[in-house]
């Protein structure tokens, strides 16, 4: 329970317009081994619930957890879900990268199509390829650098 209480709310960010919670060490440890620890605010609670209820079939891989950890993280995600702006309905396949807001922010006029094809980027879920401080939860427009 101390772990849940440890997530403190960071100051409001100029870019997102919403408050942002710091990732707990447990979340980083369990949910950032294969990909970046995605900010809980970027998905609605319902999406996190789907994800945490199907970890053994997590986008084609087994990401299952022990019951205690699964419950702990599910509760933390639910408590901190949906704080990012315009995150209300669940996105297709519960993917952040298929959310309406994500698609709008990364549309053709903002991000040239060829960027997605670069080996250095790989996938739209690879935030850190361009958002240099994404792993620290910062997506400021001043902190973007497109890789070659």
């Amino acid at each position: 329970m101390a772990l849940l209480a440890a997530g403190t709310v960071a100051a409001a960010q100029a870019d997102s317009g919403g408050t942002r919670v710091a990732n707990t060490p447990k979340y980083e440890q369990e949910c950032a081994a294969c990909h970046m620890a995605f900010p809980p605010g970027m998905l609605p609670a319902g999406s996190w619930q789907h994800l945490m209820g199907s970890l053994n079939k997590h986008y084609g891989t087994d990401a299952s957890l022990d019951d205690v950890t699964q419950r702990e993280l599910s509760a933390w995600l639910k408590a901190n879900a949906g704080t990012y702006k315009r995150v209300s309905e669940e996105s297709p396949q519960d993917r952040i990268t298929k959310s309406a807001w994500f698609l709008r922010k990364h549309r053709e006029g903002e991000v040239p199509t060829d960027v997605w094809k670069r080996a250095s980027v790989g996938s739209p879920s690879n935030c850190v390829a361009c958002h240099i401080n994404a792993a620290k939860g910062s997506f400021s427009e001043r902190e973007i650098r497109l890789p070659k």
Partner: protein
Amino acid sequence: MEKLYLIAAAAAVALLSLSPAAHAVTSAGQLAGYTAQAGAPAKAERGQQLFTTKHGKEWSCSSCHTAVPTIEGKHASTGKVIGALAPAFNPERFTDTAKTEKWFRRNCNDVMGRECTPGEKSDVLAWLLTLKR
């Protein structure tokens, strides 16, 4: 009274370290544990074979960990960097039984569609321990 307590404590520690399910916080300790569970000696060549072959599914262990995991690997889908797996090149590997078991469970399921047997785990770990500088 105090001596009795010390004897009892020593006995408890001895018993715990004999059990394969005990903490076993060294890679050698974990290997001993899996070998005991398997009831047969580990074979490193078998471990290498298992690690580098596909087992009817899309990935082998080496798809993410590389064929000789003395270097960093990369997640086959996300591209996330994965630290070297051979303990001689990454001292924190195989020092936590819960973590080892968690990753064996998940990754054997992904690669083989089932849990690895204790024999298979001991073979793989035996092979990883042969990889030295």
